[in-house]
């Protein structure tokens, strides 16, 4: 069989993109049909999630400074996008076993659809966050800088999701590692504390974590309207691109083997 290439004919790519898009639409639509509160959950669930952290960290632990609420909300919203993208992407091919067993379709469509679903839900919550920040009195004049930050974050987590989606079916152990890595990252990424409050000796290590850098970049733009650390973003973006290429390659290279292990 011919070796896999990233450069497929355009028609093949369009077909795959169409399937991924339709699957994302289908998943979103189906989700609304499963519960009584339906689509309202897309907002209610993040609100519930965020209130818990607000009460525990802001009130009980009394870590809250004056602007703690916007500070915490930005961190949590950005974190949730990363978390859902990577976790749902990682299990996307395994979860689509019915299709994997019965159709010889490009398996990239499953993590791609998961990424689109996560992006859509994030966009909703993020828009509301922006409105909230405006009401809180933050100025939107520097917010155009969000575009590169959002793009870099998308590249990074898409790359991670694709690699994991291709690897998890063959090495299910990765899923257990991932679950614990996500728990660790939640505490390591500066969601409820600032990078500047980390002891200076540990700061270089703290910023090696791409999520910590990304959360700080979002805060810099949204809450101060100034330019985030460009060098760090460039490295994360480049790393994301490399992972996207590697992940797509893995999935294509193993395309005829998924049906053996996804059962």
């Amino acid at each position, binding site marked *: 069989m011919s070796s896999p290439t990233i450069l497929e004919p355009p028609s093949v790519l369009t077909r795959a993109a169409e399937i991924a898009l*339709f699957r994302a639409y*289908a*998943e979103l639509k189906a989700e609304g049909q499963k519960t009584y509160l339906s689509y309202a959950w897309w907002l209610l669930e993040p609100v519930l999630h965020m209130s818990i952290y607000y009460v525990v960290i802001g009130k009980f632990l009394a870590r809250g400074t004056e602007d703690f609420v916007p500070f915490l909300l930005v961190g949590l919203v950005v974190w949730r996008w990363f978390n859902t993208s990577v976790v749902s992407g990682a299990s996307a091919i395994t979860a*689509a076993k019915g299709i994997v067993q019965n159709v010889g379709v490009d398996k990239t469509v499953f993590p791609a659809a998961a990424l689109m679903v996560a992006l859509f839900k994030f966009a909703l919550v993020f828009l509301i966050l922006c409105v909230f920040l405006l009401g809180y009195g933050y100025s939107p004049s520097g917010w155009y800088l969000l575009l590169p930050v959002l793009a870099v974050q998308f590249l990074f987590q898409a790359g991670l999701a694709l690699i994991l989606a291709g690897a998890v079916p063959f090495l299910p152990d990765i899923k257990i590692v991932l679950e614990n890595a996500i728990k660790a990252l939640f505490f390591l990424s500066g969601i409820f504390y600032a990078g500047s409050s980390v002891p200076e000796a540990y700061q270089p290590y703290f910023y090696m974590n791409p999520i910590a850098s990304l959360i700080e970049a979002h805060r810099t733009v949204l809450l101060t309207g100034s330019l985030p650390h460009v060098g760090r973003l460039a490295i994360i973006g480049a790393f994301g691109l490399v992972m996207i290429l590697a992940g797509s390659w893995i999935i294509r290279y193993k395309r005829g083997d998924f*049906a053996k292990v996804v059962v």
Partner: protein
Amino acid sequence: MSGFAVRLDGVGLRYSRPTGRFIRTRSIEHWALKDVSLDLMRGESLGVVGGNGTGKSTLLKVIAGILRQDGGRVVRTAKRIGFLSLQAGFIPHLSGVDNAVLGGMLLGLSAREARERVDEIAAFSELGSKLYDPLFTYSAGMRARLGLSTALAARPDVLLIDELLAVGDAPFRAKCAGTVKSVIRSDATVVLVSHNHETIRELCDRVVWLDGGRVQMVGGADAVLQAHAKSVVEKRDRVMRSSVTGEGNSEACGS
């Protein structure tokens, strides 16, 4: 219409599963297909016979490109190859229409083509306005009708049928059998797996007999079916004799 749609050349397919007492680093290998060479000609109906676990379904999956061979070569000139039963990919909380569109796309249609064929699917499946209800409200028979109608409407270049000529209630079954048979008899390329020799004899020009993952025999339907039937009878007699004399023959009973 001449030439092959799919050519298998010395194809082998291996399943392996990890094993080991504590850390499972060793693996047990099993070759489900061994050195299978076969041309599926364009427009022909090829029957596949053989006992349980002889590689029939694996063969279909290799032809469809769902599984990649671990040895040998597969050449496909046909673009769209699909199973006739399409229910596995269905999403329960989605309407029948959406599931049909998704199914059509998975069989290689563009989103627009898939949407254009919804009317055809509605008509053939006789589901009517039920097609707009979520799939989880369908009975098993209705679900099967939708899957079958979708696959037929998608008109893949090669249709793979794994023992599926009985779907739905009696009237629909009759209609289905009629349609599937007319599709098979038309110049569509079909691979049909069945344990029913009558069905295969009626519908297939050529037959492959698989045994232990190898092609035991391939050729005209009558000759192959006759040889296969003879071996089945011999095997059954052997089993009956050994069970009468009290010697277990686990190999012949295993499936």
